[in-house]
């Protein structure tokens, strides 16, 4: 018998429950009680669309908001898995779906929402329509990066593992379960975290939109914060923000960190990594007897049954005979023609709408684009100015990173839109304060992408190059020029691409301010879009949105893509 048999660690059999198990059960009980309290407490506080600023209402509102986010996230996940598979598995899918995704993610969905809202409320009750629209909005802020990440991972699954799949006759389900999901899991988890952050950013907008004179506010933490800021109720605002931060921290500690620690096993590399992500909660849960039991009896058996069912239901089919292929191809063409026809109709309609927009409004759009472009540029410059030195400091100094990184992560996860009303209260009085506030909001929303990328980049600078520069006694500026900036280049560009898109999207939230009944619109494409929405000027709304999408796509293609290519080719450290 080999040593590993002899020393197999068996848990002591006499104790049925460990203290960890008791703690878990107690925690579960508390959780159920808390949820029941929230549900029971609800009707007293919530009446109609008016938002109560009582502190007691916060747990209920928060629960509603989390549920909305969760619904949108589940939808995003489903969309990601299906869309990514189609895009990765066929040539036409790749040529059609990926550029489409690229365009879709530059669409500022905020500007379309009112239209969606109104059309939904035509045949649904107002409440349901509002809920649906809000979920759709959150969905569109979560889904794109996840879909891209999933597609990327499907495209990069190692060829030998794919061949092993084929030769051992795995069906689609087995391939998904044993290869694609594990391989893509880490990137999917990271992107889910980013998506939740993106969702929080739009939470306020998703719960408080008005179309013309109609108010479609929904009960939730977002509308609570919005109302508190509007009323100037600092106490409610503070506790609302505190609740938000608590939720974000709790999700991080109880969901994302444990998931990351668990997913460490899915790293492809054949050597153990130096600093795997850890989670106290994961360690705690996996040390309980309960989790072992659940794992083996419930999850293990359930999965086994599912696997068997899937294997029976979808046996591996060998290449279909020729006739089938032609039939399928014919069906494919038919489908293609139908889609093209639909697209053509839509394009003609869109064209007609665009033609209906008078020249003066087109001029406004052009000026607005320029104004927003300037704001975005300033915000990006400011973001770069502080994130590069700070990011390098954190990334190249592990000791600093240990206490600063969690802090930065929590700060970054607080949605800027939630802070915005507070900022406005202080800035509105300054000269040019509105412009400053708009830039600040863009900055708050986008700087983190840059910071995180720069930290990641700085931590990959090889130690031997650092030693070399030290040995050569290169002065500080030359060191930045010859080592740090080139090494960071591709990371900065990656961060900047995301940040740039985010800043444009944020302009819709940033370029208008409401005080009570009065609304001020700043010069800019975002302001124009919100104004058109409020006025019910749909041709202008459409034209402005379309122009903005075009501008973002063009900037990506003409500026960022070439820079990125250069970064990939010239400044690669490997």
């Amino acid at each position, binding site marked *: 018998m080999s040593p*590993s048999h002899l020393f197999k660690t068996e848990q002591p059999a006499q104790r049925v429950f460990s203290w960890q198990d008791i703690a878990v059960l107690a925690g579960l009980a508390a959780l159920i009680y808390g949820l029941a309290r929230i549900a029971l407490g609800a009707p007293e506080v919530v009446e109609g669309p008016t938002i109560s600023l009582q502190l007691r209402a916060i747990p209920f509102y928060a629960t509603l908001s989390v549920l909305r986010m969760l619904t949108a996230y589940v939808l995003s996940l489903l969309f990601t898995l299906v869309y990514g598979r189609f895009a990765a598995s066929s040539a036409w899918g790749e040529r059609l779906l990926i550029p489409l995704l690229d365009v879709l993610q530059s669409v500022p969905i905020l500007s379309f929402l009112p239209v969606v809202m109104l059309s939904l409320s035509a045949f649904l009750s107002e409440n349901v329509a509002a809920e649906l629209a809000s979920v759709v909005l959150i969905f569109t802020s979560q889904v794109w990066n996840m879909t891209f990440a999933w597609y990327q991972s499907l495209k990069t699954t190692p060829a*030998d593992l794919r061949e092993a799949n084929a030769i051992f*006759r795995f069906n689609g389900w087995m391939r998904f379960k044993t290869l694609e999901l594990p391989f893509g899991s880490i990137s999917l988890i990271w992107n889910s975290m980013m998506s939740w952050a993106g969702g929080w950013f739009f939470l306020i907008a998703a719960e408080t939109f008005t179309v013309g004179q109609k108010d479609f506010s929904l009960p939730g933490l977002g509308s609570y914060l919005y109302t508190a800021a509007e009323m100037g109720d600092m106490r409610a605002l503070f506790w609302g923000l505190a609740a938000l931060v608590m939720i974000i921290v709790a999700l991080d500690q109880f969901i994302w960190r444990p998931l990351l620690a668990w997913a460490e096993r899915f790293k492809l590399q054949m050597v153990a990594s130096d600093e795997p992500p850890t989670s106290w909660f994961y360690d705690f849960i996996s040390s309980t007897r309960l989790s072992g039991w659940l794992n083996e009896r419930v999850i293990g058996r359930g999965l086994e049954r599912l696997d068997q069912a899937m294997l*029976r239901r979808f046996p591996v089919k060998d*290449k279909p005979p020729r006739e089938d292929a032609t039939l399928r191809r014919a069906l494919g063409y038919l489908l293609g023609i139908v889609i093209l026809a639909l697209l053509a109709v839509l394009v003609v309609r869109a064209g007609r709408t665009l033609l209906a927009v008078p020249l003066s409004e087109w001029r406004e759009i052009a000026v607005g684009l320029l104004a927003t472009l300037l704001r975005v540029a300033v915000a990006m410059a400011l973001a770069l100015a502080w994130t590069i030195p700070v990011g390098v400091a954190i990334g190249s100094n592990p000791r600093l990173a240990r206490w600063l990184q969690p802090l930065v992560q929590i700060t970054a996860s607080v949605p800027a839109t939630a802070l915005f009303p507070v900022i406005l209260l202080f800035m509105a009085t300054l000269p040019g304060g509105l412009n400053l506030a708009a830039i600040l909001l863009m900055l708050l929303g986008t700087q983190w992408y840059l910071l995180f990328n720069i930290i990641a980049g700085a931590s990959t600078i090889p130690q031997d190059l650092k030693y070399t520069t030290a040995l050569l006694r290169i002065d500080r500026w030359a060191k930045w020029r010859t080592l740090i900036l080139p090494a960071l280049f591709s990371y900065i560009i990656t961060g900047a691409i995301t940040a740039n898109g985010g800043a444009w999207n944020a302009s819709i939230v940033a370029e208008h301010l409401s005080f009570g009944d009065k609304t001020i619109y700043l010069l800019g494409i975002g302001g124009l879009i919100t104004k058109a929405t409020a006025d019910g000027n749909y041709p202008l709304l459409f034209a402005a949105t379309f122009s903005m999408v075009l501008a973002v796509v063009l900037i990506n293609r003409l500026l960022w893509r070439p820079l990125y290519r250069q970064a990939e080719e*010239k400044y690669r450290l490997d």
Partner: protein
Amino acid sequence: MSTQEPLVELKQITQSYSSGPRLFTAIQDVDLVLREGEFVCLLGPSGCGKSTLLRVIAGLQRPTSGQVLYRGQPLQGVNPHATIVFQTFALFPWLTVQENVEVALKARGAPPKLRATRSVDLLDRVGLDGFETAYPRELSGGMRQKVGFARAMAVEPELLCLDEPFSALDPLSAEALRGELIELWTSGSIPTKAVLMVTHSIEEAVFMADRVIVMDKGPGRVVADMAIDMPYPRQRKLNKFMQTVDRVYATLAGRTDPEHVELGVPPGEPGRTRVLPHIDISDLTGLLEHLDELQDNRADIFRLADSLKIGSDTLLSLTEAAELLGFALVAEGDITLTPLGETFAEASIRGRKEIFATRVRRLPIFRWLTAMLRATEKQQLEWEVVKMALSLEFPPDEAERQLDIIIDWGRYAEILAYDDDGELLYLEPGQGERPS
């Protein structure tokens, strides 16, 4: 062991793929019969399409034309009776050793109990008992490949395909594993009816197979089919073994062709453009120096691999380069230094570069490139442009590799220079006005 029952029949298999307007042929008109009881090795230089042929036989890849028959029936999709052991192991890193074996059984619908007992038994047989709960990353390369074998055996394949299974292992584990595989195969304790192994090591092929199919490249085709009639386990030091290896070497290394055949034609002209062998120039000088020290400046190629401690594929590339540049002649498995090669080996660094330059300038592909460069105004061309031009002659990745070799040789000969930042190729000063 051969019972003459054909298991796999390949009829006129051609695998080609198009790149832009050109059609490239990876394998051309291969006819082959594998019979029950045979251990067959596909042997050949890299790029001869042996791995592609293995994938065609396993059904992972559909040939462009031709037919694959399995037990007389045309193959539809992946062959359910075949399995592959991969060069890179292809283990799922997130599954334990046992799970990696079990998952293959699960895909065939085996119930949990049966899966567990079967996989434990198989792991036992390959000597991995005690490692069931280990993850692949905790194992050495040799042990990982054992898992690969156990997984392949688990599905009880009739046809076991091995894709260079030992080339990613250290020499000791590779040798041990070879012996164990032969033992499994000859003992008849596995239901496998035939083994097909791809390798580029001649010795490995002669050590294991009872039939060696020798392939050559450009386009990939079968050039020899040799029976190896020696009892197992084979002894490497036996005369008969060495003679057989020698014979295979002679087939693969061929003999030096007359010059105009050897050099080929420049790109764009009718006829075959010579593919430059991918070598390290310092290895080539090392080989020539070694030959220079020998009596008669002559050596048996197979013995060279042994004394220089390099793989047979590297050695064959080197001898090919030496032939092409006129430094050596190859005949009947022997390589002989030419007077030019002798001069080169004894020259100074400067002198070597000059000799190398004069030889390289004779190559049609270099003549073609220098003429093109001279025709341009600044005597420079973008890398991409040259690659495009070469893509008309070679498949895209081969074109890129050829260009890399050209740049490497050209830099050593100080004929060409390459600017990586601007991705520009240009003639070294002084090369422009020289007549070719």
